[in-house]
Each structure stands twice: as structure tokens, then as C-alpha cells.
């Protein structure tokens, strides 16, 4: 069972990772995007952490919904709707009675796929989400798997988002959304390890 407390810990850790790596994420975004991924995510996660701090007794659905609304209203760009949709779908799934983490994450993944219209292999956050969600379902998630998934975006040609305009010139660069998603799941691993 995934609890509201675990979700809060998870997202607080994710916010800390984003704050620490804000400049790095924006640097990754400069050659293949528009150089703002770190700033946008940091603005969103600061709002998430502030909102979570005021909701100490919230249930799981409320935690996910709070996170979703903060991200949707503060991040902007493509990352806001994509991360926002992921947490909104987890809020919906938990409202329907699910507290099972693999099922929650599968709902989030389906939401990202629908919102962005991308597929694994397109050099996007999905290249982390797809293998990670599969690993969570098989109870095999570890740091190596996350790192491998993030690194897998390096040789890819982007097919969605601003990096797609670069064609082959995007090869050799990590996808910033995949890197931030890597932080999200690293934070999840750390949360699970504490439980």
C-alpha cells in the first residue's frame, strides 16, 4: 500500500533533487531545447513543496491532486502538462480505490502517453517512464535500471518537442525530461528504502 505520507516524502525528495540540479537541467536543455527545464521544474516543485507543507493530514488522492494542480499552474511549457497529467491520473486512480504503486504509476504513464502523443524511443521522459513502470510492476526497480534508462536517451534522435527540430544534431545529448524523470524515480527508490 502506498500511503499519503510516502507520497509526501517522495515528492519532497524529488523537489530537493530538482532544486539541487536546477542549473544542470537547464544546461542539458540549452543545446537541444530552450534552456529552461531546470527553472520551470524548480518553480513548480517549490510550489508543490509549499502546498504539501500546508496539507499535513491529506489523503493520498489529495496529495496527488495538490501536486498535479501546482505543476499544471506553475511549470508551463510541455513539462507542466505532462508531469501534471501524470499526478492527476494518479489522483484519479487513487480516488477509485487504488493504493497499489504499480497500478498508480501505470495510470500516470498512460496519461503522459495520451497527453504528449509520444512513444518510447522518441527521446522524451517516456524513455524513463516506460522501463521504470515495467520494472516497478516486476518489483525489479533499482538505481542501475534508472540510470540505464536515462542514458538510453543520449544516442536517440528526438521525434517530439523542440529537440525534434535538430534531427541528428540531438544525438549525444541526454533528454532533460528523461533526466528529471530519473530524479523522480530515484526519489521514489529512496522513499521505498526508508519505509
Amino acid at each position: 500500500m502506498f500511503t499519503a505520507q510516502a507520497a509526501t516524502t517522495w515528492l519532497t525528495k524529488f523537489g530537493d533533487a530538482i532544486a539541487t540540479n536546477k542549473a544542470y537541467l537547464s544546461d542539458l536543455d540549452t543545446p537541444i531545447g530552450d534552456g529552461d527545464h531546470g527553472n520551470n521544474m524548480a518553480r513548480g516543485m517549490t510550489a508543490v513543496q509549499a502546498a504539501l507543507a500546508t496539507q499535513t493530514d491529506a489523503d493520498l488522492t489529495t496529495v496527488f491532486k495538490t501536486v498535479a494542480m501546482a505543476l499544471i499552474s506553475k511549470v508551463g511549457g510541455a513539462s507542466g502538462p505532462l508531469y501534471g497529467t501524470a499526478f492527476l491520473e494518479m489522483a484519479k486512480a487513487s480516488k477509485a480505490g487504488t493504493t497499489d504503486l504499480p497500478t498508480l504509476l501505470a495510470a500516470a504513464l498512460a496519461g503522459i502517453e495520451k497527453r504528449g502523443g509520444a512513444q518510447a524511443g522518441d527521446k522524451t521522459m517516456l524513455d524513463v517512464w516506460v522501463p521504470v513502470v515495467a520494472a516497478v510492476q516486476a518489483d525489479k526497480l533499482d538505481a542501475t535500471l534508472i540510470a540505464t534508462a536515462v542514458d538510453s536517451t543520449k544516442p536517440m534522435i528526438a521525434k517530439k518537442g523542440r529537440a525534434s527540430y535538430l534531427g541528428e544534431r540531438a544525438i549525444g545529448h541526454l533528454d532533460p525530461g528523461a533526466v528529471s524523470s530519473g530524479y523522480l524515480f530515484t526519489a521514489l527508490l529512496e522513499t521505498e528504502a526508508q519505509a
Partner: protein
Amino acid sequence: MKKIINAPQDVVPEMVDGLVRAYPQYLKQVPDTLAMVRSDTASMVGKVGIVSGGGSGHEPAHAGFVGQGMLSAAVAGQVFTSPTPDQIYAAIKAVDQGQGVFLVVKNYSGDVMNFDMAKDMAEMDDIEVQSIVVDDDIAVKDSLYTQGRRGVAGTVLMHKVLGAAADQGASLDELSQLAQAVLPHLNTVAVALSAATVPEVGKPGFELADDEIEYGVGIHSEPGYRREKIKPSKALVTELLAKIDERLHLDASHQYAVLVNGMGATPLMEQYIFSHDLLDALAEKGIKPAFMKVGNYMTSIEMAGISLTIFELTDAKWLDYLTYPVKTIAW
């Protein structure tokens, strides 16, 4: 980086506040948002609202085009970052007169997703919303494997045509048909001399040597299709016009509207010189534009460069829409 700003994270709210306070006759801000609506609410009564917007850094787009005969509202996102759905929705709600609202969106993943989410929110409140995604930048090839072409300066001409039609009482469906009809006839391509610096990032979006230019650069420093040494204005015209001609097949028996757009740091003097060479090149093909505008309409902060938009007027009414009077800050 030298900029006349305060804290980088305050750039957008301070800009919006300055804009609405300097021009209260045109704009008012929806409280607690970065959405700006037409002050002259009487001019919107009984008409379909037109809402546009996008990341900031493209001024005077989009708020400069809010006013009777053009946009009903504009939503400002963070610099080069789409506005969020709640903000877009606030603008939709503020301009809806019961006739529905039409959204003009530029083709970027973020913009498309955020405007779609706002549309979903409006539909839950029974406000009918339709939209067009503008993708006039022909520098990027249409392909199954990319996001597709980008929306750039041609968007301003889309605002003008739709705004004039809406002011004359076009319905939401009619505006949607008009937008779909106009879209394939908007063709834009740019040349950049130097890159823009997003205030929060603090360094240029790309590097060009002092004597280098890049053709086909987008309005957020997206890469173009070729780099080479700087050339005289005449040669730049030849390159950009040839690129457009490949797709449009310019023909002396057809009518065209032309927009020469400065990217932010290129002086009007250079834009007029470019226009001089452009009009000569068109005249050689037997073409005299039926309508022309020169100036800063869709900028990219302090990027130096020019974009050329050629809009083929396949319907005589479109010229009337372009010349229809407006009351805006920047048209």
C-alpha cells in the same frame, strides 16, 4: 548579459504590469493572472472572443494585438514558456460573451498541451471553444518524425484576419473555417545574426561567430537549416525568397501580403533596406504586394535578424480583413 530588469524571475509579472498601466485604454489585467483582456468591453458584446498567447519574449506579441478588430485577450507565459491552463482559462472566461471563444495557438508541444487543457476546462463550464494551431515556419520540414513546423510571425496575420472577421460578426464555426482556409497560405522563414538570452538562463540560446548568420532559426533560438558568413541584404532576400518560392511558387497573377518582421535587435533601418531589396526582387517576378507591413511584430527578445512572411491571398476577402481598422497598441 546586460538587461534592464530587476530580479530575473520577476521579468514577466513586471512587464505585464507596466504594459497594462501604460496602456489602460487598450488593456486590463485579469486579477491574479498574466492574462490581459481588451479594456473596451463594449466592442466585444455579442461577438466570438479571440484569445491568443504564448511564452513571453515575443513582444509586442501578443498583448500588443489586443483591441477592437483583433484579439480579445492575450495570455503571457514565462519567457519562451507556454502559459499554463488556468491562466488561459481565465482569459477564455473573461472574454466569453456566450458566442464561444476561438484560440490561436502556435505549434509547440507545450503551447498545444496547455491550450488543450484550458479548452477542456472551458468545456466543463459550457463555454464552446475552438482553436487553430499555426505552423507557418517553412524552415522546418513537415515530417512524421518531428513536432512539425513551428508557429512564428505569420501568426500575427492570422490574428488580424480572424479579429476582423470576428468584429464583423463571424460565428465560431465560420472563424474555424476561415482559420483552416488561411493556414496553408502563411509561409515564413527567418535569418538570425545573433541569439536571444532568456533572463533566467543568463546566456545566449546559441552561439554564432561575429561574421556568421543562420537561416531558418525559430523564435526561441531553435536551430535553422544552414550557417554561413554574413552577406549583403540583397543576398539574404534572395535566399529567403527562394526558400518561400520553393513551396509557394510565386506567380505574378496571384495576390500576396508581405510581413517583414524584426526579431528584436535589428533596427528598422535594416528592415527597410531588406524591404527595398525584397520589393525589387518581387518586382523582377512581376509581383507588387497587395499589402505589406514592416516592423517588430513577433520578436525573440534581443535576437538580431529578420523573418519574411508571404501570405498568398487566395480569397479577396482576406485583403479586406488585413486592411480592416483596429484599435491596438502594436498593429
